[in-house]
Structure formats: structure tokens, C-alpha cells
């Protein structure tokens, strides 16, 4: 029924178009049962950055199978809700791009089908396949791995810092406006702060041996409290500030106002004229500062009528070095396929991010993660700004999240 509204909207739009131009596209899903392979149409949802790369791979696929691939451009933010709403109606795509942390939601709603990578699984970075795995089943074909690292302006700081305090000291020596930049904002940024939290030994959920998570909170305890104390100290010292938003941090680093920024490859475009080096994030609490890894990949719809084609397309045409490198060129994220990643690593910046990513942990894809995000950031921001008592605020956060998860 919800679909009916969408279809109604689509129909209205179609009508409007038809009225204006006299010839509009037919609504999606109007494909009839194909008499032969040439009539089959595979619908793939992509966002802007991956459109060209997927279209290239699709061209090769069309040639070798005779099937048609329709690449539909969508806003990345719309893909998840639209996929959830449209797959059950049978009107959704056969394949969509997506992030690995959607997995929990997609499987509880039964809209994705598992993919058997077979022997190809070994050709991917282990963390990328692990990220798409739930209960020993793989649900997505990974194509890119992204994580944050310490981006260093080599003109201002020649050496990579070993610890957080070293970094702050080096930043102060550089005589720049900020010793070190890390986006915080009044809402907090737990994703960017996670490596620092990890360095105090406080992972968000209990982790299994294979890297997947159990829905048991592990934020609290001694590590968590120590991290909260540290946040308060750094906030008071002025190293961390809730006024530093993403835009402010990136603009300041681009202007050379700090030698260090904690961030990801998506920032690089703005730093085009700086000499950069990518280093591991310095540890604040003594343990390794492991950031979250986000893996981008392709999901197959559980209601796809072209499941064979879809799997064939992904496993045999998107898991190739050419396709993965094309996606890398378009999106700047290190490829998930090891062979492609090796080629991409000729670029020292990509190699730097990849090296940090090798030690990183996958971002949990549990449905419970939504509840964690809701409290996590604001609590960190409140502690940094000195509004809340660190230990108390952290404990309250843990119990609130526990209350939400139930």
C-alpha cells in the first residue's frame, strides 16, 4: 500500500512528463517475462559517484550475456529507506549499492539475499568480507574499504607522532592556530572519536573472534570511564572543542592552520595543494587506536526475479580488478579486492589509508547500533564542553542505551 503512494507519485510524474514531452520512460518494473536471455533486464541502484564505474562493468556484462542492465541513479541517503520499502512489493531493484552497516536492518526485514562468493572470498581483504558477514553468511559483494587515519601536513610536521600527547606537542611546536583538528560539533562525532576510545580499551560491543559483534554493550567499565575522563581533560585544555564542526576542521586544515587532522579520504579533495602523509591515529590511552572500517558493497534483493543474473553480474563481473579499480578512480576509497588494492596502493595516500585500515575493526552492523549512536555523540560532546561530569555522564549513557536496547 505504501508502494501505491510511491507508484501514484511516479505515475503522476510520468503523466506530467508524458503531457510535456509526449514520450516518457515507462515506470520501473514493467518488464515482461523474457522469452530469451536478451530480454532480461537487471536493475541496479547506484549513487552518483559509482554510476560511471558500474555502467562500464555493465557494458561488459551485457556483451557477454546479452541481458540488459538498467543503472538507476539515486541519492545515497534515499537508497536504504527506498530499498526497504520497495523490495517487499517486488518493485525494487535486483542489486543496490550500500554500506555494510545497513546489514542488520536489511536482514531483520528480510530484503537481502545471501551471496555465495565461493573461492572468490579469499581474493578480498578479510575485513571487507567479515563486515558483510552475519551468522556465517555473506550478504554483499564488497568493493571499497574506508576508514579514517591521521592526515599530516608534512610541511608543518615532518615526523609522524607516536602518541596523542606527542601529536599535541608537535602541533603546538608548529605554532599553528590549532595543535590538532578533530571534528566534534555539539552533537559529538563518535565515529571520528572511536579510535581514541579504542585506545582506552573500550569497544562499543563485545566482539567475537571472527570480528563480528554480539549485542552486548562493552562501552562501560574502566576503559570507558578513563576515556570519558580524558575527553574532559582534553576539552578543558582546549585541544578538543565542540565548536569544531566538519566544515570548520576541513577549512582550517586546508588553510594550513594545523599540522594534523583526523579524517578520511573524503576530505582529500579539499587538500589538493598540500603535501600530505597518512599515518596511524596516535594512541591516547596506550592501546592501539583502531578506527572503524566502513565497507561499501552491493546487495542482492531477496525478491529479485533475476537472482541468477544478479549474482552472475556481481561475482563474475564486479569482483574483477578492472571493475574495482574503476570504482576506486571514481570514489578514492581503497578497493576491497586485494589485487585491485595492490594496484591502487601505488598511490602513497591510498596505501596509507589501507595500512591503517588493515588494523581497523568493522563498524558494527547490529540493529542495536542505532540506539548507540543516539546517545553516544551527545554524551561525548557534553563531556568535552565541560557541561557534564565525565564518569557520571558516561555511566548514564551506558544505562540509557541499555534501556533503549532492552
Amino acid at each position: 500500500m505504501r508502494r501505491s503512494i510511491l507508484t501514484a507519485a511516479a505515475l503522476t510524474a510520468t503523466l506530467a512528463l508524458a503531457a510535456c514531452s509526449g514520450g516518457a520512460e515507462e515506470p520501473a518494473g514493467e518488464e515482461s517475462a523474457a522469452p530469451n536471455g536478451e530480454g532480461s533486464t537487471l536493475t541496479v541502484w547506484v549513487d552518483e559517484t559509482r554510476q560511471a564505474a558500474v555502467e562500464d562493468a555493465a557494458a561488459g556484462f551485457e556483451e557477454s550475456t546479452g541481458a540488459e542492465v538498467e543503472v538507476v541513479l539515486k541519492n545515497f541517503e534515499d537508497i536504504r529507506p527506498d530499498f526497504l520499502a520497495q523490495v517487499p512489493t517486488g518493485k525494487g531493484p535486483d542489486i543496490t549499492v550500500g554500506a555494510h552497516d545497513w546489514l542488520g536492518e536489511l536482514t531483520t526485514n528480510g530484503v537481502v539475499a545471501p551471496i555465495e562468493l565461493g573461492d572468490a572470498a579469499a581474493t578480498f581483504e578479510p575485513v571487507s568480507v567479515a563486515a558483510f558477514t552475519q551468522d556465517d553468511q555473506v550478504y554483499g559483494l564488497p568493493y571499497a574499504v574506508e576508514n579514517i587515519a591521521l592526515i599530516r601536513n608534512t610541511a608543518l610536521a615532518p615526523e609522524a607522532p607516536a602518541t596523542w600527547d606527542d601529536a599535541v606537542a608537535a602541533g603546538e611546536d608548529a605554532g599553528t592556530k590549532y595543535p590538532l583538528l578533530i571534528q566534534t560539533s555539539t552533537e559529538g562525532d563518535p565515529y571520528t572519536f572511536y579510535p581514541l576510545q579504542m585506545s582506552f580499551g573500550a569497544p562499543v560491543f563485545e566482539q567475537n573472534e571472527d570480528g563480528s559483534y554480539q549485542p552486548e554493550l562493552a562501552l562501560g567499565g574502566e576503559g570507558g570511564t578513563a576515556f570519558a575522563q580524558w575527553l574532559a581533560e582534553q576539552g578543558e585544555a582546549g585541544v578538543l572543542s565542540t565548536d569544531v564542526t566538519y566544515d570548520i576542521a576541513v577549512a582550517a586544515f586546508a588553510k594550513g592552520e594545523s599540522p594534523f587532522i583526523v579524517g578520511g579520504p573524503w576530505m582529500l579533495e579539499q587538500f589538493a595543494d598540500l603535501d600530505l602523509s597518512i599515518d596511524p591515529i596516535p594512541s591516547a590511552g596506550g592501546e592501539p587506536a583502531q578506527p572503524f572500517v566502513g565497507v561499501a558493497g552491493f546487495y542482492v534483493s531477496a525478491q529479485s526475479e533475476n537472482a541468477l543474473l544478479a549474482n552472475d553480474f556481481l561475482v563474475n563481473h564486479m569482483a574483477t580488478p578492472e571493475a574495482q579499480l574503476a570504482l576506486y578512480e571514481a570514489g578514492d576509497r581503497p578497493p576491497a579486492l586485494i589485487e585491485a588494492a595492490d594496484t591502487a596502493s601505488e598511490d602513497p595516500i591510498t596505501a596509507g589509508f589501507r595500512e591503517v585500515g588493515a588494523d581497523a575493526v568493522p563498524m558494527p552492523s547490529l540493529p542495536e547500533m542505532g540506539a548507540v549512536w543516539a546517545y553516544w555523540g551527545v554524551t561525548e560532546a557534553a563531556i568535552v564542553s565541560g557541561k557534564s561530569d565525565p564518569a557520571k555522564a558516561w555511566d548514564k549513557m551506558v544505562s540509557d542505551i541499555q534501556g533503549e536496547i532492552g
Partner: protein
Amino acid sequence: MSLPATRGSGRTGWSPGFLVKLVLIALVDALGVYAVLAAWGAESWGILAAMVALLLVANWAYFSKRALPLKYILPGLAFLLVYQVYVVAYTGYVAFTNYGDGHNSTKEQAVEALLVQNERRVEGSPSSPLTVVADGDTLGFAIVSPEGVVEAGTAERPLAAVDGAAVEAGRVTGLPGYEVLEYAEVLERQQEVTDLRVPVSEDPNDGSIRTQDARTGYVFTSTLTYDPVSDAMINTTTGVTYTANDDGQFEAADGTTLPVGWRVLVGLDNFVTAFGDDRYAGPFGKILVWTFAFAAVSVASTFLLGLFLAIAFNDARLRGRRVYRTLVILPYAIPGFLAALLWSGLLNRSYGFVNEVLLGGAQIPWLTDPVLAKLAVLGVNLWLGFPYMFLICTGALQSLPTDVLEAAKIDGAGRWRTWRSITLPLLLVATAPLLISSFAFNFNNFTLIYMLTGGGPRFDDASVPLGHTDILISMVYSVSGLDGTAAKDYGLASALSIVIFVVVATISALAFRRTRSLEEIA
């Protein structure tokens, strides 16, 4: 033929008017038929039925002589039905279901998803080059085992070695007793191929061969089976039976449920949940009060400022009135969500324009202090809203009957007296309905809150992610998990929206009744 017979739109003479009508109706019919065909192709039967009904009614209304009123109201009525009545009715329906995360779809699809999610590839099993074959109409798989033996089977017949197969490049290309399918034929029956499970042996626990790309086969075992007779899922390794319950989930005797459920009607459950969670009891009261205050103050402040400027710029002695009027309308020309985003940047504590430039580097926490944040929200809404009030007040002022004002002057009324007894009441007659609609709009002004403060700063004493500037509609957004902070629950969101609708509708109805007394004064 008498002369009057050719007049009037309902008559069937071939007058120019009738021809125009014919062409227009033909256009509408053409579009309608196109929509019907598109709906047919997309298998959207509801839309198809609605389109057919609308088309029939439209043709009847415009060609019948007895449907004169309908000729005027039909277009409006049709849009009202599609965009208002249908949406409200559908929201009402969803409010009584458990549509949301974990209950996203039909039972059939939930069963399908559970089955496929609980199939596991047998650890260490080989990946075998596979060929799809057919024995008459029955599909089967032929594989080459790691030892190089060709084996074939169907859903009914477990894998068995077959002699005399033709193998090329490690793949079966011909098989006695079976027909090897071309790729195109495989695609034609791909649903059957992906659903096909060929047992490895007579013992079902050994698993079965399946394929996802018609090129490689793997051995899978499944841990869940569905029994349609008892409507239950059975876990074959633990022996636990999960039966379908009334909440749209499979539930075992000990209360554990399987993760994927389906949509069912749950009666008033959503309304009970909406008011039953005591974590929300405290914040709800505060948010309710703030919502009313926000809506009322926004209407009052924008109206007063708009009115003041309208009066000031209405004075004939003011030079360059047009320039001022244009400038004043500018905020109205900027989309609301964009303006709210801009303001959230301008009001940043350390780097915002307001603090840094206007206040000389002051560190005023405009958006992070509970009281200041509320003031900031009201201030930004004033900035956004007064041009609208200015516009309608200017219009109303300029259309005041001058004779009444002159009569007042002749009767010796002073400026203030004239304004209070003549101008304002007449103005209110014209603007009161707009004030009510403005109240209703601000009551649900989600965009402003979401873009400017996101509801923050958070309540320190509450255990739910709500803040001091959250209004009811942004609370609904958060409570029902639409912002991603909890499992999405469209049923709950719809139920709460209906509650808000009832509140706003009641207030508006009462207020409209009051405005009638204004008209009596006038």
C-alpha cells in the same frame, strides 16, 4: 431548433465551446488511459481501479446535463481524494498495524527470507563447476566432482554418477538422459534454477546442491524448515518448533522469536505504547508545553511584526516604500530549510557570524543553552515568518473600505480610536483564518527544528534522545525511530501523527468558531 438549445455547456450542439470541451476531455481521457495501461503493466490494481473510476466519473460529469455543480468541483474533489483523504486514511490504517523494522513485509516473504538466511554452505565443501540440465520438464544439476566424476540429479533424485558425459574445460556439455540448457534458457527459468535444491544423497542431513549463478554449485544444509500445515518453523538441529503468533512472528514455546516477522493488524497496541512508556512521561509534558508555546509565540510575534511593518510601509508619507517592501519580503523568498541551516551556522558559538562579528567575539551558546536555544528558534522563526504576515496585512489594509474610515473621521474619532475600533477588527476578519492556519503549520514545523537545533540541547535528566527544543512532531520522528536512533516503527509513528492531527484539528475547529464572532462585530 430553438435558439436557447445551443447555449450552455451541457448542450450537445457543435458550438466552439463544445468542441473545446471535447478536445480537453479527449486529452484527459488519453492521459487516463495511458495511466491505466501503465498501472496494468506495473500490476498496481488499486491505482488501476481508481483511475478507471475517475475517468468514468469525469466523462459522465462533463457530458451529462444533470451534473452542473460537479463540473466545477470535480477536479478539486479528485485531487482532494488522492492527496488528502487517501493519505489520511492510509496513515489511519498503518496506525493499527505493526509495520516497521522486523515487520516490513508479508508472511510469505518472511518465511522465504528466514529459510534462505538459515541455509549454510557446508564447511569445507568443494565448489563444483555446474551445468543446468533438464529431464523433460524437470530441472536438474550436473556437476563435476573434485575427483573428476560427473554426477547429476534433480530435486527428487539425489546426485548420482552418470557415465558417458561430455566434459569441456571442466564443465559438463552433454549428458545422456538429460538435455543441457543454453544460458538463455537458464535465464528464462532463473527463478526455478535458484530455487532448485538437488540432494547430495538419500540422507537429507547431507545437504543439497544449489547455485546462485548457474555456473558453480555448492553444498548447503538448511537449519530451518517450514511446515505449512501447522504454520510453524522447525529448527532441524535443535528440534525447536516456532509457531506463528498474533504479533506477526514465529515464536517458540520459551518465548524466543525468529528475527524476521511480517505485518499484521495489532489493534490499539500502538496507541497504548505511545502513552505507556514511562521513559517518555517526563519529556512528553515539557515538549507538549513547548510545542504550544512555540506555535503560539511564533504566530503572535510574526503577526505583530508583520502588522507593524505593514502599517508603517502603508503610510503614504514614506518615501521608497516599494524598495522597503521588496527588502522585507526577501526572507520569505529563501527556502525554509536552507534558511534554518544558514542560521545554525550563523549562531555557532565560536565561529558563527553573530558571535564573532556582531558581538565582537562573545562566546554566547545560542544553540546549546536550553533557554537561549528556545529564543534562537523563536527568533529565526520570526525572521522566517514575518514577511508572510507583512504580505497579508498589507493586502488587508489596502482593501479596507475607505468610506467606513471617512465616516469615523467625520464622527470625530481619533487615530487610535479609528485603528482600534475599525481597522483592527476589519483586519482580523481577513487575517484570522490565516493566523489559525499559521498556528497549525508552526505546531508541526518540523523543518525548522530539525535543521536548526535538531531538537537539542538534550534533556540532561531524561533517558531518551529528546531535547529542549523538540516539538511533538520531531519527538514522533525520534520515538518511532525514523531518525535511525531506534528500530523504525511506522505503526507507532502513524498512531502518534493521528494524535497530533486530532489536537491540531480540535484547536483549529474551536478557533474558526471564534472567528465567526469577529465577523459579527464587523
